[in-house]
């Protein structure tokens, strides 16, 4: 069995995994992915009223991470859009092992006595078997540097995808999102859309990527991980909406592109994203 050994070894030494899903869904998950079991006490059923305090902490984690970007998730979207149909996988630490400032940031109630979630990866199954939609990846690592959580976002996503038994992942993110640097550790990301008016922020791109253990390990910053690094054909500036629209038109006409590496930071919330061409599909696109 492949095991995870992220470069930041303290993550697995300190943190404990959890999963939120209804009972019958948990049976379909691998709750010991990479040989890392999720304790029964940390398998949370959103249909149980007693789960409410933990689920509220997840909402606060979302607010602390996505709220500043203007996309906090309403409670009902958490429930209807994630907890009930799919799952939430993450890592946390016992309340007694966290700094008071960390607890303050997450607004942990004084009488709370349990696992405090520090990261979460929400994914939703799609209508295609084994393909999962990555809905939300949140990590407190940047907000609490004193906790030493570097690499927690990638670890959480890699572990979560393994728990869900995903073979392929799709996702949507903005061209200027710092999270792209995490996602691309899975390897080249095929662009399914480059300009997406269906999203609140049209400068959203939609991507898809096939998964393997080697890619998941790379995402988790495990030195055993490996991904391809294709050539760069063009750079897309996150503020160049005209180029993004042009790429979208070319995708709709059958051209194919992929993000081939880590974006470069060129200004405040401004990235240059390396993009390469893919050969056109010649056979059935059905995967």
């Amino acid at each position, binding site marked *: 069995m492949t095991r995870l050994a992220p470069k930041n070894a303290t993550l697995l030494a300190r943190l404990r995994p959890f999963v939120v899903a209804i009972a019958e869904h948990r049976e*379909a998950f691998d709750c010991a992915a990479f040989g890392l079991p999720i304790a029964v006490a940390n398998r949370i059923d959103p249909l149980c009223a007693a789960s409410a305090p933990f689920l509220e902490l997840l909402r606060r984690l979302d607010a602390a991470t996505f709220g500043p970007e203007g996309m906090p998730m309403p409670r009902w979207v958490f429930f209807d859009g994630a907890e009930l149909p799919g799952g939430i996988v993450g890592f946390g630490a016992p309340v007694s092992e966290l700094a008071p400032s960390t607890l303050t940031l997450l607004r942990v109630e004084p009488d709370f006595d349990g696992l405090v979630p520090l990261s979460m990866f929400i994914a939703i199954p799609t209508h295609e078997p084994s393909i999962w939609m990555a809905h939300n990846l949140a990590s407190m690592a940047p907000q609490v540097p004193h906790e030493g959580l570097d690499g927690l976002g990638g670890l959480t996503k890699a572990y979560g995808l393994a728990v869900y038994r995903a073979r392929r992942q799709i996702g949507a993110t903005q061209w200027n999102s710092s999270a792209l640097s995490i996602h691309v550790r899975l390897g080249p990301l095929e662009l399914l859309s480059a300009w997406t008016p269906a999203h609140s922020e049209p400068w959203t791109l939609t991507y898809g990527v096939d998964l393997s253990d080697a890619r998941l390990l790379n995402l988790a910053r495990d030195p055993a991980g490996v991904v391809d690094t294709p050539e760069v054909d063009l750079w897309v500036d996150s503020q160049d909406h005209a180029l993004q629209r042009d790429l979208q038109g070319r995708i709709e006409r059958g051209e194919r592109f992929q993000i081939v590496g880590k974006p470069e930071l060129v200004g405040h919330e401004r990235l240059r994203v390396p993009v390469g061409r893919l050969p056109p599909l010649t056979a059935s696109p059905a995967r």
Partner: protein
Amino acid sequence: MPGLAREISVVPSRAPCRSAANARGARAERSGCAILPTGLGVPFRRVSIVESLSLEPWVVATPRLVHRLAARPLGFRRDELRWFDPMRLSSTAFLDRLERLDELTFGPHGLRMPRWAFYDCVELPGALFGYAGSTRRFPEHVRGALPDDGELWPLSMCMATPMVRPDEWLVFSISSLLELEPGTDSVRLGVETLALTLAALGPKRAFGTMQWSSPSLAAHAHFAPLAVRATWVPAHTHAGTCVFAFEPDAGRIEHALHAPLSTAGEGVVVDPEDQLALTAMQGRIEAGEKLSLVGATEATREAKARVRWGRA
């Protein structure tokens, strides 16, 4: 909790109810509706509100879903479904109108869905279904809320998200612009929209959520009995939420479409404002007892649920 009672008494359903209706076993029906063959060789009648307003079925989903749809849901050929791919620029105008529908129906109750959530939670992984038409054929109270632009406007919608196990879907956020005026037509169109969703996706099991005071409760009750999985959900925006599941076979869809809602019969009426009762029922469910939603008190948006202990 008087505040809670007032709050949930006006909340529409943001509830999934997914169903696995395949058309097998559907029975022919009564007068007044065309009987159309489905791809499975099973007749389904087209339905009343849809016919009377000359509505067309639509789908928002990525293209590969087409292979998973029933050949002729409710008698509509697949190529009769107006298809909008959320990853294509040409869909933008229709998605704008869909957002307007959501704003008009859920917005006043604080349950408006952010556009990114439409995309992430429904359009990419699952699908939206509904009926659309020209505003010029819509009732006057609906026309007043929309531009007279001659475009195709969605009148109703139902969201569907796949669940973890194969052939299980969560169906939620059933709504229609007919809700802008009280009456039974909005309930009927809700039933017809949910039926289209179930007939198209053909799930083996559907999950749903709705607030106990939801205007769509009567629509869901047409598909009863429903196995209630939770009566009190503190994690939801409105804790007075019902989570349920059912197996929507063709007979159940057919019955929902064409049989009048039984508004009398067995079961205890659920008071949406009685938090103590809802939490007590939740405790019994978590202790292993089975609760079924067996009907509604009336066929309008004011309906309350009737439940009884025991399997659905």
